[in-house]
């Protein structure tokens, strides 16, 4: 793709993600999640998504609550200290309204590492002896989805073999985590696609390369030449990014190193309110439907955003109230 043609709108970005897409995201639990794009997907009533995530969080709770997700494949979903678990996933698991597949955190990370390197599988010894490897709990197989029809769904959840080189014992071979689309929420992207992430980059480089198509939603689109004076500070090279979207506060209510903190009140209220489907629907009427991202941040209001704003010196907010004091 030639330069200068990667810029699209949030709404156009959401349209790239079709019904049934295998999808993954940037970030870690309650940090740098592409929530603005996810709200747009919900507005566009996307269905049958297959989420493959290193770990999950509020962003996927939005999608799951809204009925957009058919399969959730990951290791964790919750809201850190703002909500004990993913109430929407939990409800849909109980009601058998979603297919779930559990791996461990390192397993999911290594699966994306393999996919990002074009390796079909990778060996690890983590989680040996746990029910993660219980053959009865291969949920995609139980759902009849490991039949090879979808080329990105592995024929087995895992395979075992003995190390033939050093006598290091039983190894678990994990299939690469291949996905159709990765959506990244980041601080800065250049006009040609160079991504500069501030702070920990989590698994963003791996999920980017694991995907066939990568959409980057950035707080700011900046001139490439600004980023290219210091290539060591950049996280993802230009040619791994297909589309770019400029979207200030695009990760709210999750946090963005150097830009804004997690909106804990927002997430806590979401968690409490959406422990029933009715609660979720009410939340969606209030915060998702009938508005666009501009209306959303205006509804949040200046005081709230100023309060969350990160100190340029410290990269986090010194104003936000996090505890009881």
């Amino acid at each position, binding site marked *: 793709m030639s330069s200068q043609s990667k810029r699209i709108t949030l709404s156009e970005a959401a349209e790239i993600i079709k019904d049934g897409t295998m999808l993954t995201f940037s970030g870690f639990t309650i940090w740098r999640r592409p929530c603005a794009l996810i709200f747009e997907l919900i507005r566009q009533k996307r269905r049958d998504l297959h989420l493959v995530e290193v770990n999950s969080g509020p962003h996927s709770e939005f999608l799951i609550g809204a009925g957009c997700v058919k399969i959730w494949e990951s290791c964790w979903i919750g809201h850190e200290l703002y909500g004990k678990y993913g109430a929407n996933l939990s409800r849909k698991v109980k009601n058998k309204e979603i297919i779930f597949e559990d791996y461990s955190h*390192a397993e999911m990370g290594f699966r994306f590492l393999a996919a990002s390197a074009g390796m079909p599988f990778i060996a690890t010894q983590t989680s040996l002896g*746990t029910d993660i490897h219980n053959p009865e709990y291969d949920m995609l197989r139980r759902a009849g989805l490991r039949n090879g029809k979808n080329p990105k769904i592995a024929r087995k959840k895992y395979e075992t073999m003995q190390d033939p080189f050093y006598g290091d014992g039983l190894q678990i071979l994990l299939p690469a985590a291949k996905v159709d689309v990765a959506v990244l929420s980041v601080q800065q992207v250049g006009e040609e696609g160079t991504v500069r992430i501030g702070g920990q980059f989590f698994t963003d480089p791996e999920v980017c390369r694991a995907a066939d198509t990568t959409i980057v939603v950035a707080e700011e689109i900046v001139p490439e030449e600004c980023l290219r004076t210091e290539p060591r500070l950049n996280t993802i090279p230009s040619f791994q990014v297909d589309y770019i979207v400029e979207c200030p506060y695009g990760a709210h209510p999750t946090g963005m190193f150097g830009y804004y903190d997690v909106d804990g009140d927002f997430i806590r209220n979401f968690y409490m309110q959406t422990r029933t489907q009715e609660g979720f629907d009410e939340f969606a009427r209030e915060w998702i439907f009938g508005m666009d991202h501009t209306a959303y941040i205006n509804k949040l209001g200046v005081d709230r955003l100023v309060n969350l704003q990160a100190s340029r010196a410290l990269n986090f907010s010194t104003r936000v109230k996090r505890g*009881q004091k």
Partner: protein
Amino acid sequence: MERHDFAKPGEYTLADLMTVAASREVNDNEVVFAGTGMPMIAIMLAQRTHAPNLKLIFEAGTFDGRPNVIPTSVGDPRCEGGASRASGLCEAFSIAQRGYVDLGFLGGAEVDEYGNVNTTAIGNYLDPNLRLTGSGGNPDINSFARRTVFIMVHEARRFTRNVSYITSPGWRVKKWPSGEFVHRRELYGSAFRGGPSAVISTAGVFRFDEDTGRMYLDTYHPGKTPEEIKGLCQFDLDISRVKGETAPPNYDELHIIHEVLDKEEIFLPKPKKS
């Protein structure tokens, strides 16, 4: 001025006691993996008391950090204060699998006598009473670290004969495809480095016999008795090796917890004045 004499009942909370007990599990110079909340405060407390050279790892990708402000989670920008390196999760778990990690702090919803822990689902996994968060890094840190310490609420339904789902591997784990229980050492081969070392519950501190893999009561928290704690376990808890009461926090530790680390009262509210 540091005050190393013990605080009196009422001057500290149960959470303070547990945090301090967790902190004392850390030795100086160790590489320690910490999760959000109480474990984080426990390690940052150890860093400021008896283990100034511990190396703190957050699984999101921060190495040897010395944060001045308590992070809200391991993905928080606050993690990076004074850190040696910040990168990502694959590097963190590669480092762990490579064998650099001495100690990890973890939580759990259920634990069995062998230290198997469940954080995934209560009841039948395929038709659960309650779906929880899932594993997170719990099994990974527990697979790779030399010692792991679990911090848990103590209720009889949580200290169970059989956990609903083994999320995190204890001393006797399942060998697939049969699912028969074997000693952890048998399964991990050359990757065997240790396993659960302690459980710090709201009732006491528990340890494990490495050979049998069974849990035993080490110390009981002030106000509890070994028999009472035994009654709060569905399995037959070994209380024959109990040493006495869990040592309470000292004033220096309480000062660091409440006036330095968590003065915002994010994770550990101050004891209420009577």
